[in-house]
Structure formats: structure tokens, C-alpha cells
């Protein structure tokens, strides 16, 4: 009965369908460079650099836990069609991208190929571990990958994207460089504004759920006094929470920032210490206020300043 599948007629139908489908996708996307970006913020920067030359597809939506993006098979056909893949690097996507690439049948975007654009190249990295041992939790041996929260480092990201796109499509190099220049100027303009806006953040002590905020804190002069997680990626033990609440009281920390994590523990700590709890996503694109990179950082800085003014 199953053998019918292999009869001549079915094969013809299948083949025809395939040819039709491949023609169709070819026609739609023939004009533009097909970019797949892992996170919305990267997608936006790519759009700024590529403008009308690129069509950008984003895998994660921005509300996911940065280390808990579900590995959906629906990502596979999208990766399969991509001309370039743009990712954060520093092992940020190590839990899902390498396995997806194994089945995506797209040699262009494999690690080490020109289409694999790692935005962390040349980024001054923070939190690089001095001891690489899993007793320290879920480590990022190459350093903290949440560098997109620093707008100054985002200029390097834009540069990396422009370089990566030019490497694959040298015929458009001039256009990419022109767009890059305009975007970096825009960013610079915004950075000036944000630095003024963020003046009240200077010296503010905060607690984070997971080490995601160090780059932003470093840029605007906030200081981190601890994290809710016992070790990166390891949920807190009751003892750790007791110690943390004591530390919050002692150091007079003013903010507790969490994102995709469970709100229960931050709320519990807040009840005990009165610390202000703030939910902010460490990835852009989670809502209409954060759907471009600049809007996302602007929203983040504004929300932080507002929260600090309330404490």
C-alpha cells in the first residue's frame, strides 16, 4: 500500500510541485539579499545598513529568554534560503543555531563561511571568565554576550554587518558603507542624548536576575551589586536569596532588573527589601516601543531613568 508512493505518477506530481515552489520563492526574493538575523535588534541594524538591498527575517521575537529560544523546525527552511546569517556570537546562540544549521542544508551560512556574520568581532568583551568550569554555572567562556545593550558597541556591530554584507556582495559595498556612515552618525547623535538623559543613572546600584545588564550599566555608570541567580543560569537557592536581600539592604541597591525570567522571586525580594522591581527585556523587538534598535535603547534608558526617579 505504501509502495504507491513510489509509483511514477506520484513522483511526477511531487516533482512538478517542487519545481513550482522553487520557482515561486525564486521570483519573490530574486531582487533582494536574503538575510536571517537571530534577534530583532540585529535585524533592525541590518535593515539600516542594507536598506532596500536586503530583506531581513528574524528568528527570535525578542521576548524569549536569551538562552532559552525554542529550537523550532520552522526555522530550518528560513535558514535554508538565507544568503547570510547574522548572529550575536560569543556563544549566545549556541543552544539552538548550531543544531539548526546541521539540518538547514545551507553551506553558505555555516560557521567559518562568508555568509556567517558574527557581530561580536572586535567587541571589547566584559565578564570574560578567568576560570572555565561548569561549577561556575552556564558559562560563556568568551565573555558576556549581551553587548547589544551598549549603543557605543552597537556601532561596531553595524560596522561588522556592513563588512559582512560587503564580503558576500562586493558589488553593493559602496551603498552599504554610505548607509553605515549615516546610521553611525544617527547613533552618535542618539548616544549624546542618551548620555545626557542617563545622568540620573550614574552611581545607581542595581541587582539583576541574570548577568545581562553589565554593558548598559558600564556605559551609563550604574553598578551591579549582585544577581538573583546563584550562578549564571542556575536558579537561586533559599540561602542565596537571604544573602542577596541582606546585601540589597546593606548596599542600598535601588533597582532589581529582570526580563524573561519568572517574576515570583523578584517580587518576593522586593516585598522584603522594598527594592524597585523593573521588567526590561535584554533583547529588542518585544513590543511596538522597542521595534527598532534605537527605539529599544531609548525605551530602556527612559524606563530606567523613570524607575530611578521613583525610588
Amino acid at each position, binding site marked *: 500500500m505504501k509502495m504507491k508512493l513510489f509509483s511514477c505518477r506520484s513522483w511526477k506530481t511531487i516533482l512538478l510541485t*517542487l519545481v513550482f*515552489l522553487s520557482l515561486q520563492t525564486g521570483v519573490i526574493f530574486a531582487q533582494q539579499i536574503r538575510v536571517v538575523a537571530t534577534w530583532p535588534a540585529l535585524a533592525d541594524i541590518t535593515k539600516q545598513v542594507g536598506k532596500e538591498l536586503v530583506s531581513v527575517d528574524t528568528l527570535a521575537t525578542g521576548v524569549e529568554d536569551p538562552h532559552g529560544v*525554542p529550537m523550532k*523546525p520552522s526555522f530550518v527552511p528560513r535558514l535554508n534560503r538565507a544568503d547570510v546569517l547574522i548572529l550575536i556570537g560569543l556563544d549566545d546562540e549556541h543552544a539552538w543555531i*548550531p543544531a539548526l544549521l546541521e539540518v538547514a*542544508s545551507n*553551506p553558505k551560512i555555516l560557521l567559518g563561511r562568508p555568509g556567517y556574520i558574527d557581530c561580536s568581532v572586535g567587541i571589547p568583551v566584559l565578564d570574560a571568565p578567568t576560570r572555565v568550569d561548569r561549577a561556575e554555572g552556564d558559562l560563556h567562556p568568551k565573555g558576556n554576550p549581551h553587548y547589544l545593550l551598549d549603543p557605543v558597541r552597537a556601532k561596531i556591530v553595524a560596522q561588522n554587518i556592513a563588512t559582512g554584507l560587503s564580503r558576500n556582495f562586493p558589488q553593493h559595498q559602496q551603498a552599504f558603507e554610505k548607509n553605515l556612515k549615516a546610521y553611525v552618525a544617527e547613533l552618535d547623535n542618539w548616544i549624546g542624548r542618551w548620555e545626557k538623559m542617563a545622568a540620573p543613572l550614574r552611581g545607581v546600584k542595581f541587582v539583576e536576575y541574570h548577568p545581562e545588564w553589565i554593558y548598559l550599566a558600564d556605559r551609563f555608570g550604574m553598578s551591579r551589586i549582585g544577581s538573583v541567580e546563584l550562578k549564571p*543560569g*542556575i536558579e537561586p537557592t533559599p540561602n542565596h536569596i537571604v544573602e542577596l536581600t541582606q546585601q540589597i539592604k546593606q548596599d542600598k541597591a535601588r533597582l532589581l532588573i529582570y526580563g524573561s525570567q*519568572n517574576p515570583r522571586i523578584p517580587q518576593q525580594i522586593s516585598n522584603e527589601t522594598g527594592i524597585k522591581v523593573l521588567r526590561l527585556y535584554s533583547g529588542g523587538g518585544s513590543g511596538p516601543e522597542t521595534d527598532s534598535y534605537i527605539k529599544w535603547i531609548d525605551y530602556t534608558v527612559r524606563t530606567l531613568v523613570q524607575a530611578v526617579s521613583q525610588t
Partner: protein
Amino acid sequence: MHLHSRHAHTARLARGFADSYPDLFSDYFRRCLCLFLGRQLVQVAERPSSARHSLRLVRKFISDHHLVLVSALTGYEGDQFFGGSMIMVLSTLRMPILGASALVSFLLLFPVLGLAQSSELESLRATVKGMEQQMQKALERIDQLEKEKSSSSARIGEVEKSVQAVQSAPTALNPSMGLVLDANVQNLGKAGGNFDFRSAELGIAASVDPFARMYSFINGTKDGVEIDEAAAITSSLPYNLTVKGGRFLADFGRFPKVHEHELPFVNEPLSVQRMIGGETQADGVEVNYLFPTPFFLRATLGGYNKIGEDNDQVSNSKPRSWSQFTYLGRLSSYFDLTDNHSVELGTTMAYTPSVRLAGDPSGGNRILNGIDLTYRYQPLSSAVYQGVTWGSEFYFNNQRFPTDDTANRSKSYGGYTYADLKLNKNWSTGFQVDYAPIVDAPAQRTMSYSPYLTWNLSEFNRLRLEYYYLNNNFRGASKAENGNQIFLQWTTVIGAHTHGFLSR
């Protein structure tokens, strides 16, 4: 290097001086003053030998401008007036260092000074206007120094990176490795208990060259060591094709091709063990094709000696006619119903044209079919904390088995269904129901019902407690496959560990 860092430090101080007290120095006059002092500090920073010169300039500034200073300051009352007088007295007494420090501390201590009246500001503005440009230059110089500093630290970063790359080069050429320990303590009802050292699985993987990668799982159990899998996979074939060859778990169904310690249960479902012969271990070759459809659709064609680690119908070492090999076709697809809900559907057929069992020399074909359906609820924003998986597989086996003096075709059906509920980041629980026939006597079957509780201490450390109730509809089942069973499993991982996409 040391000298450089000291300069940078002083320049930072000078910059910080103006930056840290924005309110204090909002006043026009004191901002100029601050710029002047800052410039002196920068000069000292650039050329420590010029310290004496700078000090002279400060001294001169105070003696030149003390009248202006005093006239600006005498407008104030009380402490401020006292402070102003002190500066005047000290500077006229030709003790400019004390005068300067008094000025600085005065400025720092009395921020109200910033509220100078506008008329006084006008006169001050006139006095210092000429100086402003020079001071602006000083500020630019500070900025430049700052930039040089950051660019040099970026250079240092690059150097560090390349050093890292060099250091990690030898390890990068080594394959990534990991070891999984899977042990449990069990109580098999009337059969008694056992500490079951089930496996220590060594995984090794790396790229072979630009055209292929390779991986292997070497499994040590209480019965010995064997190569569970060792396969090469192409990585650069065109037309969405992938070829895999060697010994590997054939692409049959969902759980049959998953290593036992990766399952959501302690044990592989009994239906898989009986109908397929455990994990779908196979020596052979597989071709995968990813359809260029907008949704995920993937086909596998394979040819193997046999499928099933414990399948003893065929020997791996005896050459035979090509009709006695097993051929497989599989289609698997996946659909996102919404962002949070998804369905995965697969169908497999393994066809062996001729199986020659002892006692049935003429043989006959064997058809083993499978359908697998998985529903997942993974809320994007909290997939780490919540989720539901409902998975079911159904198998159908059709082949001839020898009976007393002839051989008869027998058909058997079996399968399992389970639901797994994620309680929070570390805990999950579920329930499994399994229906396992005995393939050569399909009227005999075992039903099993099994609740379980999983505690993930971390991604690499897992404890699982599972209870099985096994019910047989025939007599003579072994004690170990009957009644109540309890398992406590401990699984730990060191090093790199991934079974990749297929065993998600």
C-alpha cells in the same frame, strides 16, 4: 606603559572633575575656572615636568584675578563671604597654593555659589571671555586623549583576542568531547532490586574537512563497551541533500532514534523495545532531502543491514543478497499553529524484501511502519518555565514467523503516548501509557502505566523518579516485566554534549 597609564589616569581625573559636579559648575564663571584648572591638570598629565610651570600659572591666575574673584564673591553673605575673603587674603599674602586650594574647596563646598546674580555674571563673562577659547581647546585636548585611550584599549582587546585564538588553536583542532553518566537504582517488583549502571557514553564530534563532519558515541555499559554510533555526515552538498554513512541511529520515528538517557522517561517504551529492537541502531547509509517549502518538510531514504540494536533477525557481519537488507523512507513535517503552539508529524516505513529466520528458509518480506505525532506548547516568553509536550507514536509490524512446522504471517500493533508538563525551570512531571505486543505472538501484550517526576538541578544534572505498573494479558511473563517497578535515575554530563536536532 606605566607612565602612559598614569597620564591617562590624570586626564581621566581632570575630565571627571568637570563631569562629576554638573550642578556645581553650571555657573558660567566657575565652568571657565574649572576648564582652566582642568587644562593645567592635563598639561601635568602630558608632561609631568611641566607641573612647576602649571603651578606658576595657577598662582598667576589667582593673583591676576583675585580682585575679580573677590568682587564676585563679596556679593554673598556669611560663609561664602568668609570663603571669598580667605582666598583674597591668602592670594595677596602671596601664598597662592593655599589660596588655590581654598578656592577649590570653596567651590566644592558651596554649590549655592552657582546661583550668582546675572549682573555679576555679565561682568565675569566679559573678563573670562578671552580665556574661554583657550579652555575650549583644553577640553578638546581632553577628549582627544580620551579617544586615544579607548582606541588603544580596543587594540589591546584585539591583541588579547589573537592571543586567545593562538592558545585555543590546539584544542580547536581536537574534537569536542563529553561524557554522560546514566545510572539508576531500581526495584523490579518480585524480581528484586539492583543498582543499574546503565551507561557511560563518550561523545566525540568535529568537522572532518570543509565537506563533512563526523561524530561518535562510544557506550560503556555493565555488559561491556560498544560503538553506539560513529558516522560521517556531508556538510556541503548542493540541492539540499545530506548523506550520512557509518553506524548511527536510523531515522525511524521519534523516540526510537533517541539515546535512552535523552528520553523524558527512565526507560525506552516497551513497545519500542519489542517492535523495533531498542534504539534504531543501524549500519548503513542515509540520504536526507530538505524540501524547499515554506514549512519544514524533510525526507529520508536509507539502506541498512538491519534496524534495531537488539534486533537479532539479521547479522551485521554476514554478507547476503541485497534483498535481505532493510530500506527506509521517512517524511517529517512541522507546523507552527501559533507562536506558542506547534505540531510535528512524521511517518516512516522500513521495508525488508526478504527476512530469513531460522526455521523459515524461504523467508518473506517485513514491513515496519511508524507514525509519530507531537504537540508542543512552548510559550515564547516563558519557555524556560512552562510548557506542555504531548507525544504519541504508533507502530505496525507485518512479517512471517516460523511456527511448529510452517511459518505464518503475523501482524502486530503497538505504541505509546505521554504528556509532559513543565512545572518550572527545574521541575517537570508527566505520565506515559504504553501498549507493547509480542511481535511473533501478537495476541500477547503488555500494558504499562507510568507517572514520573523530573528534577533538573541544572542543564547537566538530572534526577528522575518513575513508577511503572506493568500488566500482561498472558501467563509466563518474566518477573522483571510484571507488576510494580520503581526507578530512581541520576544522569550527569561533563564536557560538550549534544545529540543535535533530531533528538530535540
